[in-house]
């Protein structure tokens, strides 16, 4: 197992290095000049060059990349004299648009995205699996039909619609949250009620879309597993249907769902851009979309991309390991 994990960790590291190189290449070969773009309104050639130097774009892309990698381990400094700025290791660079070290920005944004991801994950797993099992258990009957409608609605409504509907016709209409206060980070330890109010509706928005998919997966997996030989054997041995469902059917049926759930969760950790945007949540999604669309902020773009990639790769690793524990057949293989 140790060898397996070590190999996967090395693979993870290689993927992240590759992602960082690709982002640098894409950024450098786009047909626009970030130094000119962020130079301001009264810009002339000398100012553009000064801005290029300020942004660290006056050296070849591979040198920019190396400075970035070096900064991760040794920290980085910017500007000179009394205006000098130091971002200690691990430094993801400095955002000149937000006037902060990127590590600090990520540190501020991550708890928001993490809260959103965990909250919605719990909601969609409970809702999706419960409805899926019910639909399978009562196949062709009323619970199955209700689940089918839920799946149709959930998969048809993109989050930018469901989020807006929830926000405008539930949250704002019934004054559940003061819109002026939306998006202010509230710690679950000092203000649990405020934290709950802040996150429950974004979590529901995300969970609705995911739960619909998981209901469908769970239903079909449970139905498929129920027709397996080992389930027939369990029935022949006289086990109750509840025990069969809990101990045999679900264990086998949920294994593939766990794989997808891990990846979905990891994807969300990289930032739920639309939901964060609608509910004004200052998470990684908002951070990255602002960097891409408004600021053209390479250090932020690079860092959030790397972070999102890291979450997905690590989630893959964790899921692979967890898989072996959940499904005995995998262990045997």
């Amino acid at each position: 197992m140790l060898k397996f994990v070590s190999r996967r960790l090395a693979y993870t590291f290689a993927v992240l290095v590759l992602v960082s190189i690709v982002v640098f290449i894409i950024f450098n070969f786009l047909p626009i000049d970030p130094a000119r773009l962020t130079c301001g309104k009264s810009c002339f050639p000398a100012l553009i060059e000064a801005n290029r130097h300020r942004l660290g774009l006056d050296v070849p892309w591979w040198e920019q990349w190396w400075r970035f990698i070096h900064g991760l381990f040794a920290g980085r400094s910017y500007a000179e004299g009394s205006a000098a700025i130091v971002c200690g290791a691990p430094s993801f660079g400095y955002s000149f648009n937000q006037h902060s070290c990127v590590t600090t920005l990520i540190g501020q944004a991550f708890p928001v995205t993490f809260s959103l991801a965990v909250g919605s994950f719990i909601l969609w797993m409970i809702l999706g699996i419960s409805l899926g099992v019910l639909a399978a258990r009562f196949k062709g009957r009323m619970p199955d039909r209700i689940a089918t409608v839920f799946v149709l609605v959930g998969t048809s409504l993109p989050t930018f619609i469901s989020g807006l509907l929830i926000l405008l016709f539930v949250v704002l209409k019934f004054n559940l949250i003061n819109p002026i206060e939306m998006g202010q980070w509230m710690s679950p330890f000092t203000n649990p009620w405020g934290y709950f109010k802040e996150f429950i509706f974004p979590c529901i928005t995300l969970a609705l879309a995911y739960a619909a998919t998981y209901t469908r997966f769970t239903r079909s997996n449970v139905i498929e597993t129920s027709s397996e030989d080992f389930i027939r054997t369990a029935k022949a041995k006289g086990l109750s249907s509840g025990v069969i469902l809990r101990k045999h059917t679900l264990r086998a049926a949920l294994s593939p769902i766990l794989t997808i759930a891990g990846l979905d969760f990891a994807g969300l950790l990289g930032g739920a851009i639309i939901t964060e945007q609608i509910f004004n949540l200052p998470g990684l999604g908002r951070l990255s979309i602002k960097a891409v669309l408004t600021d053209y902020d390479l250090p932020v773009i690079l860092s959030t991309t790397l972070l999102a990639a890291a979450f997905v790769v690590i989630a893959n690793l964790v899921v692979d390991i967890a898989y072996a524990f959940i499904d005995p057949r995998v262990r045997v293989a």
Partner: protein
Amino acid sequence: MSEKNMANVRRRLIATAAAAALVAGGLLVGGASGAGAAPTSGGTLYMITHAGQFAHADPQRNYTGQDIAFFNTYLYRNLVVYKPSAGPSGSGLVADLATNTGVPSNSAKTWKFTLRPGVTWEDGTAITCADVKYGVSRTFATDVITDGPAYALSMLAIPQDAKGNSMYAGPYKKTGQALFDKAVTCSKDNRTITFNLSHSVADFNYATSYPAFGPVKASKDTGDKYDLHPLSSGPYKIARYTINGEMDLVRNAKWTKASDSVRTPYPDNVTVRFGLDSNVIDQIMLSDSIPNTVNLDGLQPVNNRAFFADDKYASRRMNVYDPYVRYYGLNSSAGHLDCLAVRKAVFFAWPIQSLIDLAGGTVFYGDVGDSPIKPVLGLDYAKTTGNTHDANFKTAGNPAYAKSLLAQAKTDCPATYAKVTGDAGISIDLPNTSTQQKASVLLKAGLDAAGFNTKFNFIPSGQYYPTVQDITKQGDVTRAGWGADWANASTVIPPLFLKDGGFDLSGNWGDAVYPDFKAKVDAASAETNRPKQAADWKALAQFAMDQYWITPPIFGKAQLDWGSKVGGVAFWDPQGTFLFPALYVK
């Protein structure tokens, strides 16, 4: 100034008697809130916006009209500021930190300002000439202090190297410090600052209304990070500022009314909420759910129409002329529209009314203009002749007349004619937005009817201006907008039509008439007799229109809205936004 970030950016503009005439003529729809009622102190005034942050809070980097108006009202004190009153009088300068609005000498190459006593920073220390001098010096640190106005760089008597870099590198590196110390001096009592300019600037005091000429305390300067927490000299100070979050302003205990003849701070707190979804903003304003709120963005088009159509919102809205002229630059450089007859044909084929209707109609978007200088600039504006006043001009476009002009072009300049009517066609630069996609359909119909082969370059909106400002990437026709920095067309004609002006989208420097035009612009810029200078600008506007360097311009309008508990609302003409100093919570 270009109309980059139009939602946030309100360029400076001086309204004059002409503006008063427009107002009196009923062109303002809606009115001020709380007019006549006595302002009350206290409460929290909210401001909401979709933007994630102020473009800049650092005074030397602050270059957008709305932000300047906000910070000059609440946080900064400047040498001079615009008078905080509605209407034309709001365009006049009043002394703020200084005891007067500046004393010129040496043919306006030297300007002196004397600071009033008793003005302090939020830490209680006195604001001195050295603080103002240090603040101005920061503009020269171009590798740290970016985005701000470059007037100090171009006006102060500090030499530049061959590449156009100032020989002074700012207060952080201190290279060339002696040159700056010679250009900007302080008296022995540290109260009088003298600016020595490289050339006569008759309206230099208007430039000093920019916070870029305001004070910064050297010991509190944190370079790039000063943008997050500038030291206050005004009636409020920053309690909290988080990007994508909010800015909370609380009263500055060290500020005294006795030291400030300009400001009367009414609310106890001012809170700006950033990053709200546009739908949420609209919902707040439509439902008046937070009545002590000012909307810094304006409503989305559909809601805007509904808001202005319903009488129940009449006391919470205002429709005014904004500082901008919208136009399309006609690129007259070689290989593009380097033929007067072709440019004229484009001008007369242009379906301007359709474009106005698409963007909201004459009620909300603007009127057909006749000059790059907007009437609200008053002294420098005069009705031009020809162009939109020509008998052949039709707001729907006149393809028949345009065809006759193209026929003339076939003889006068066959190569250009062949290009615009052939496979290469005439290319129009547009930001890649849904509105401009629709505009392209109207433009194609209008120009193709005249015989052009119309094509489009859709450029991602965030990259639009950096792309089209590169002449090698610019097409034949380029959408743009501009507003004056202050009450002088010196901030319109040179930037728009001189090669080094910074925003010349007409590519006119290869034109045979350009040397003559440039000589006249240079003479006008140096003219210290203001009425004579105004006459020069009027003539130069006519010159530009006669050369058809731009399409028919549009004199733009803007709509503002606010909650029912906000009093004292009026439009601040020179800043192109709310008259922040008058706002109070009812």
